[in-house]
């Protein structure tokens, strides 16, 4: 409908052909960090690079990584879910209790994932109904889910008998005798969700809603539905992680899942996801989880006292934020200069 045009063509109105300038993907920083860390540790400690060690490392990173991957969606809609650790634990406990009660393990696992999804949906519905940020609601549901797991699990570790069926062998086993099952799930999930976020209509809506909720609603995007779906996805992913944890370990201890939410947010931020919403990288979050795990295991390998672990994770994130800030300054500086030269 815009082909017929009556208004006079203004001087200089033809769209100026701009040089396509090289834009680095958001994950560049975290990939570089991972490469540097692995290279440094491999150089200092030869055994670090052995496949067995690397796969063990991947396995450790898999569970928090899966949660981080889900967290990217929540951060991208400009929200924060604090309850993932408790959801993780509650689903694992419920699945364990079901298995112990004689329900088929696979069915119990499915029930765990479904429960996680319902919990996420409940978070979203509460946030919508009460008109408060998700972080406030999930602070409440975190305590509630935590309390429920204590009630159901009676504050003790639950270890259902692992004898029957192929559930436990499948999840604690290794594909090709080398790659742990949880790692395979982690990688598959990361690739799938990366595609979902950047190549589907749902992913588009998630990004649009997070970038400017009011503008998105104004363009006709059903932002409430998008929020609910993102939070339900987060819940399902947390439930999946809980069930995998149960399957791989064969037991759920009361402290499992503590600090998972903060770990996931940290990993996502390391990977280039922004707290201000609109921009998320699933692959970046997965690599971010790896970076944290490599740093931790490197410290152990170099003989640093384990008490320094938390400090190291925090320092890593602060350093990443500083590097990101410097990068932004440099980019805006370059853009100014480009603009100046274009003006002549």
């Amino acid at each position, binding site marked *: 409908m815009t082909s017929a045009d*009556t208004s006079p063509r203004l001087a200089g109105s033809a769209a100026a052909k*701009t040089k396509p300038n090289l834009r680095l993907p958001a994950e560049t920083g975290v990939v570089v960090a991972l490469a540097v860390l692995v290279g440094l540790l491999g150089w200092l400690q030869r055994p670090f690079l052995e496949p067995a060690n690397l796969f063990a490392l991947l396995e450790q990173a898999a569970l928090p990584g899966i949660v981080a991957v889900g967290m990217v969606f929540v951060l991208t809609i400009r929200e924060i879910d604090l309850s993932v650790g408790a959801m993780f634990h509650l689903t694992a406990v419920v699945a364990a209790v079901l298995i112990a009660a004689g329900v088929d393990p696979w069915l119990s696992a499915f029930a765990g994932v479904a429960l996680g999804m319902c919990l996420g949906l409940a978070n979203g519905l509460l946030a919508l109904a009460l008109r408060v940020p998700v972080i406030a609601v999930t602070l409440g549901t975190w305590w509630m889910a935590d309390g429920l797991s204590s009630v159901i699990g009676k504050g003790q570790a639950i270890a259902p008998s692992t004898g029957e069926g192929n559930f436990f062998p499948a999840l604690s086993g290794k594909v090709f005798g080398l790659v742990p099952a949880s790692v395979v799930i982690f990688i598959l999930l990361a690739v799938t969700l990366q595609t979902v976020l950047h190549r589907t209509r749902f992913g588009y809506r998630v*990004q649009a809603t997070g970038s400017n909720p009011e503008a998105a609603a*104004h363009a*006709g995007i059903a932002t409430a539905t998008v929020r609910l779906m993102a939070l339900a996805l987060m819940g399902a992913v947390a439930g999946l992680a809980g069930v995998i944890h149960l399957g791989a370990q064969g037991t759920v201890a009361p402290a499992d899942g503590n600090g998972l939410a903060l770990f996931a947010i940290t990993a996502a931020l390391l990977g280039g996801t922004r707290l201000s919403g609109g921009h998320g990288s699933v692959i970046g979050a997965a690599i971010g989880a790896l970076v944290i795990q490599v740093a931790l295991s490197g410290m152990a390998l170099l003989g640093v006292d384990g008490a320094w672990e938390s400090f190291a994770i925090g320092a890593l994130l602060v350093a990443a934020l500083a590097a990101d800030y410097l990068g932004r300054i440099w980019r805006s500086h370059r853009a100014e200069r480009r603009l100046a030269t274009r003006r002549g």
Partner: protein
Amino acid sequence: MSDSPLIVVRSLAKRLGGFVALEDMSLAAERGTIHAVVGESGAGKSVMARILAGIERPDGGAIEIDGHKVAIDSPNAARKHGLAVVLQQTALFPDLSVLANLFVNREPVQSGLIARREMQARSFALLRELGLVVDVGAPLGELSAAERQLVGIARALLDHPRLLALDEPCEALDRSQADRLFAVLRELKARGMIMLYLTNRLEEALALADQVTVMRNGRDVLSKPRSDLTPTEEAMIGQLGLTLFPLPLRSLSNVAGTLRPQLTVSGLSGGRLADVEFSARAGEITGLAGLPGSGVSDLLAMLFGQRRARRGKVRFPDGDGLPKSRTEAARRGICLTSGRAGNGLMADKSIAFNLSSVVVGARDWGRRWYSPKTATERAARQVEALRIRSGSDELAGSLSAGGRRKVAFGRWLEIGPQVVLLDEPARGIDIGSKQEIYALIRQMAACGCVVLLHSTQMSELAGLCDRVIAFREGRIAGDVAGAEMDAAALRRLITGDAAAAAQEPATTSQRDAA
């Protein structure tokens, strides 16, 4: 006139993103005068006001006060130099009381506590002078737009500034409030205060000012004492806006059919709107005139599914009633583009991403996948058609206000809308973009859309619309078309003031030119 001017602005320049808002703006304001700066909205007046207020820093040029060059790099610096600026969208706090708003950041303190009594005493006389009769303890949000505007002016005057700059102060005021404000300004002038009066209405400027500077595209094009302005020059300034409006494309109106699709509204109430009844035909631009707060924005929000109607029936060209949500509206081809802040774009996303927001974001049919390649192709088409002066992979936030508005239009053009609702679509953008947006609106009407255009600028409505419905306090005050549709008549209808026309100069008869 008098000896040395108090404030001199020399070749002020300011770039906002990739857009030049001020290029070479100069003016000199003499002591004890009212200096009007006249220009279309988008000419750069507001940017200059923000620079004087210390909110933005200029890229070039200088501001001199008493012959000394000063740097106004913060609102506090502006206050220190005796400059008080009342911005168009004044930063007030709706949740705080009127009194607290008047004394923000300079509350009188008595033994460590805020002295409410002293605040009341100091503001009492001033508020009465301004004709503002309100409960000063009430939250500001409960006041009308006009009262809030007066609170903003009162706050500036409490500083006892040497120079008071007012950016479009009368936009929200009715005639009697404006007259009272003018009287206050003349009184202040007699006491030796200098006023910069920024406006887009020539008649206001001529009625009030001692000196007139005309501003266009970020430059001063003419500056003269009011008494030296010849009638021809007055007419010339008045004509500046005329070339903006494209000739109507009468493609559909010539078709002698009575079965054109219509938008029919009957007995609609909700928000400030009470029992409104009208219909708008496809192929025409139907103007909706009304002051801020007259309920026209509420009407558009209801038609777009953003606001619930209390009562009443609406029949859209597709045969259905009011959409229940914005999503439903978008799916039915009903679109709203607003010039107000808050529903803009996703500034940290690319232009291509933004242009896909209705096609990919709102529709629930079509492909489930989002392909950046398709989005880029789609964007390339719109960037070309709308003459957006940036590549589609650049961030929407880097565009000028005009460019952003075009992107906001472009995302709807992709779905070929049936009903186009426009809420001050050309507010605050540069003249070039304005012209292009006006041409676009005409085209949409010519393509068979129902176009409803709300504007607070009567010249815009008179220049662009086929028919204008005037709203006053939530009710229809008149329905004019053809030759009787001129800016003065419309203003008379929306303010409900028969005397208004007499005080305004014979208005630039836009219809004759269009």
